[in-house]
């Protein structure tokens, strides 16, 4: 019983324990806030990537693409785990505004809109045609004109608040889009200095806000067939750069990606006599996360670095606990002597002080977590107030593709941080506790020590 009463008594009576609790609480508060925001940013970014690129991507980096995609899509759609598949062309083009004369070399994405909105969350990124996404390439002002969807950051100004200043009407803007048509061998389909490129005019029909800054500031979407003919992917045999595949809910993405990979291997072995079979060699089958690893990995690395830095800083908390316990134990040497003289074992002494450390850890974690929860619940309001009063924004929304500061609490994070706080307290208290347990009562209670 003493090993329960004494820790509680020490905890309540010794004012120095408040200092220990506050040190732990401060550390827990900082880690919970920073990691919640950081995890939220990473999760938001990965979710947006997932929504944009679907579950699995069959793709090649070559601008020449690969053929027989229609046949493979038919096979895919017969699989019980596939919802839909959409062919996509990725290439570069010169986009010139016919009204301003300004031009830019941009990424072009050719999509079959009907298939693409079934396969990805592209429909949610549209502004004017969100309700009727299948008509996204039909400009509202004249549905007979060939439309193009432009990345939102290319056209629409973003306000400091993070909102886009969208026009209430769809302006009739036209763009001359030019591509190099390539033969299946990759050579220029047209030779001669004046005639090596293909051009066509497209009319602004919508803008797309995927929330992925690099995509929204560099990509123009045009109908799949139009881009296929502009970049010569209809020469020889019709070709595509990628196939996006969406799996049914409840199916494991990695397992299904492996199945698609097997299906692809099977497909290309059957089509080895196809005239453009050599193009299959560069095709990869990947899940969305692997496909986007170059973009996602740096953020995850930064997250890891942040955890390491906090671990380093958390070391100071361990030091503080160590010193405070050293202090408490040195002041309690007589109590320890008396306890031992009454027959309390070494492990009994260890239990008393480790339980005290546990109490400090738990209380520090609870205080830290509660204050972090209150802070996170109000973080966006606080930022809004700081912005209104002092013009301070944590992230300038004109630069960063962030809407609100993420503040979704993950119970697992709270549990891990609380466990780490308790572990740090136990670790910090361990040495002084072992020192206390090792003391002999005859040494502690001899008259000149009293």
């Amino acid at each position, binding site marked *: 019983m003493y090993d329960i009463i004494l820790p509680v008594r020490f905890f309540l009576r010794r004012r120095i324990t408040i200092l220990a609790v506050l040190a732990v609480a401060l550390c827990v508060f900082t880690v919970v806030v920073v990691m919640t925001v950081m995890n939220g940013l990473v999760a938001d970014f990965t979710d947006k990537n997932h929504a944009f690129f679907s579950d699995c991507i069959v793709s090649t980096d070559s601008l020449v693409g690969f053929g027989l995609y229609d046949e493979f899509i038919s096979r895919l759609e017969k699989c019980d785990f596939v919802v839909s598949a959409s062919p996509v062309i990725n290439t570069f083009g010169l986009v010139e505004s016919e009204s301003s004369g300004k031009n*830019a070399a941009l990424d072009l994405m050719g999509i079959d809109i009907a298939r693409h909105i079934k396969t990805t969350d592209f429909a949610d990124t549209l502004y004017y045609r969100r309700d009727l996404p299948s008509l996204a390439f039909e400009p509202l002002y004249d549905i007979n004109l060939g439309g193009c969807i432009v990345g939102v950051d290319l056209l629409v100004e973003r306000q400091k608040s993070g909102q886009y200043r969208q026009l209430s009407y769809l302006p009739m803007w036209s763009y001359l889009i030019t591509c190099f048509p390539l033969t299946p061998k990759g050579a220029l389909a047209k030779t001669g200095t004046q005639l090596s490129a293909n051009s066509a005019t497209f009319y602004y029909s919508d803008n797309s806000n995927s929330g992925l800054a690099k995509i929204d500031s560099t990509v123009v979407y045009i109908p799949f067939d139009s881009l296929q003919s502009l970049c010569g992917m209809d020469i020889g045999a019709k070709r595509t750069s990628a196939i996006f595949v969406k799996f049914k809910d409840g199916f494991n993405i990695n397992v299904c990606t492996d199945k698609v990979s097997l299906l692809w291997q099977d497909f290309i072995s059957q089509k080895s006599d196809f005239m453009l079979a050599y193009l299959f060699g560069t095709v990869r089958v990947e899940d969305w996360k692997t496909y986007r690893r170059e973009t996602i990995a740096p953020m995850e690395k930064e997250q890891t670095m942040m955890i390491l*830095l906090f671990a380093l800083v958390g070391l100071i908390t361990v*030091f503080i606990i160590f010193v405070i316990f050293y202090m408490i134990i040195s002041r309690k040497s007589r109590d320890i002597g008396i306890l031992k003289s009454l027959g309390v074992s070494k492990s009994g002494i260890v239990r008393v002080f480790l339980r005290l450390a546990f109490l400090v850890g738990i209380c520090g974690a609870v205080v830290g977590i509660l204050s972090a929860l209150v802070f996170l619940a109000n973080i966006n309001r606080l930022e809004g107030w700081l912005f209104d009063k002092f013009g301070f924004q944590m992230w300038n929304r004109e630069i960063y593709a962030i809407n609100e500061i993420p503040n979704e609490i993950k119970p697992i994070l709270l549990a891990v941080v609380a466990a780490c706080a308790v572990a740090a307290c136990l670790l910090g208290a361990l040495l002084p506790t072992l020192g206390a347990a090792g003391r002999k009562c005859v040494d502690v209670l001899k008259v000149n020590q009293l």
Partner: protein
Amino acid sequence: MLKFFLALRYLKKKKIVLLSIVAVALSTALLVTVASLFTAFIEAIESSSSDYLGDIVLQPPQEFSYSDQLIAKLCGAKEIAAASAVLSTNGLIHFGPGDVKAVSIWGIDLQSRCRVTGMKNNLLMQKNLSSVPQFKTDADDSGAIPAFIGIGLLAQPDAKTDEYDLSKVNAFIGGDAVITVGAVGKVSQTGGSFANLQTRSARIRICDVVFTSVYDIDKRFIFVPVDSLAALLNKQDIKPADVIHIKCAAGSSPQYTVDVVRRIWTDFASDRLNWPSYYIADTEIITSVAKQSQYTAEIRKQMGVLLVIFGVISAGVIVLVFCIFYMIVVSKQKDLAIIRSVGGSSFTSASIFLFFGLFIGLLGASVGLAAGLLITHNVNAIERQISVLLGLKLWSSSVYMFSRIPNHFNWCWAWRFFGAAVGASVLGALVPAIAAAKTIPAKILRYE
């Protein structure tokens, strides 16, 4: 003397004091390193901007003619050392089978550009020549436009080492590529002629490779002679340009020179170009450092937030020093009482611990500063070792712009944190020092 002696003695005898020294050192090293790496990154952005754009950028709302005359006027001002015109456009480049990329094409006058920027130092082949670099190759260039190409367009840095394969890159020199740009053409029809957009293609010959170590520049830019680009774009104007880059004379401040440039530009645009005043006023004349200010301000903000977070946690050092000192005061009460009984004042007792705190602060902060200096200077080697040992590439030019981690040690921030660390130690020692000062010898030294 007694104060110093006792402070030093406690420092030597009490092993637990080492803990506070380690904590002070750890906090100082962390804060100094973070601040140095951030400020070095910001400085690298600003210096690469000056290196690439000159000191001042003049960018009118639209393209203009007679850029040679404007440059002559600018160079006539004593505050300006050199100026160079740029004609820019965007386009596509076809290198070979299946290899097409989007590019920004700059038409430049190489001689003046080398005076304004550090372009020569960025050329792989011609940087060591004593003469001014030239748009020429040994190969016969029958009609092809000579060009310098960004290294990132020709190759990708190695995923593990983040370095380019220079032998592969050099193999491109002397080779050809095709560029396509958008040009405004005049079409004659019954009833007059009108302008329309056309695409025009041309063969270019790669004379040299530009390696600025700034990934975004290296992977996107092509440089060709300004007259060749003007001809390709079907420009009818004389010496057209859309941007002027200006280098200030030695001793002239870019901020001050901006006013001089604005005055010259206003005179030129109204007299020679006949532009209306509102159009002239719409011209952006800004230092290259200020051009990056929105981005660098964001990085500064991130640095500030990070330093506040780490600073708050590092403030735990105060608690640590307080606890250790309080413990020492309690255990050394008899010593203190003896000092007081032989005539030492309260101040003497207090100052022992304040000096002690000062020693710990100085020692810990010095160790931390040295560690910060060591880490910052060797951050590239550390990053390389992590990459080799753990296979984890932390720094990549495609993500963080530069091929190497900028590692200039910031002494200004270092001294600030040094001072803060010493101050924190003294502050932590303050309450124990007061407790020591309040020691009453009669109570401590009585026999019972």
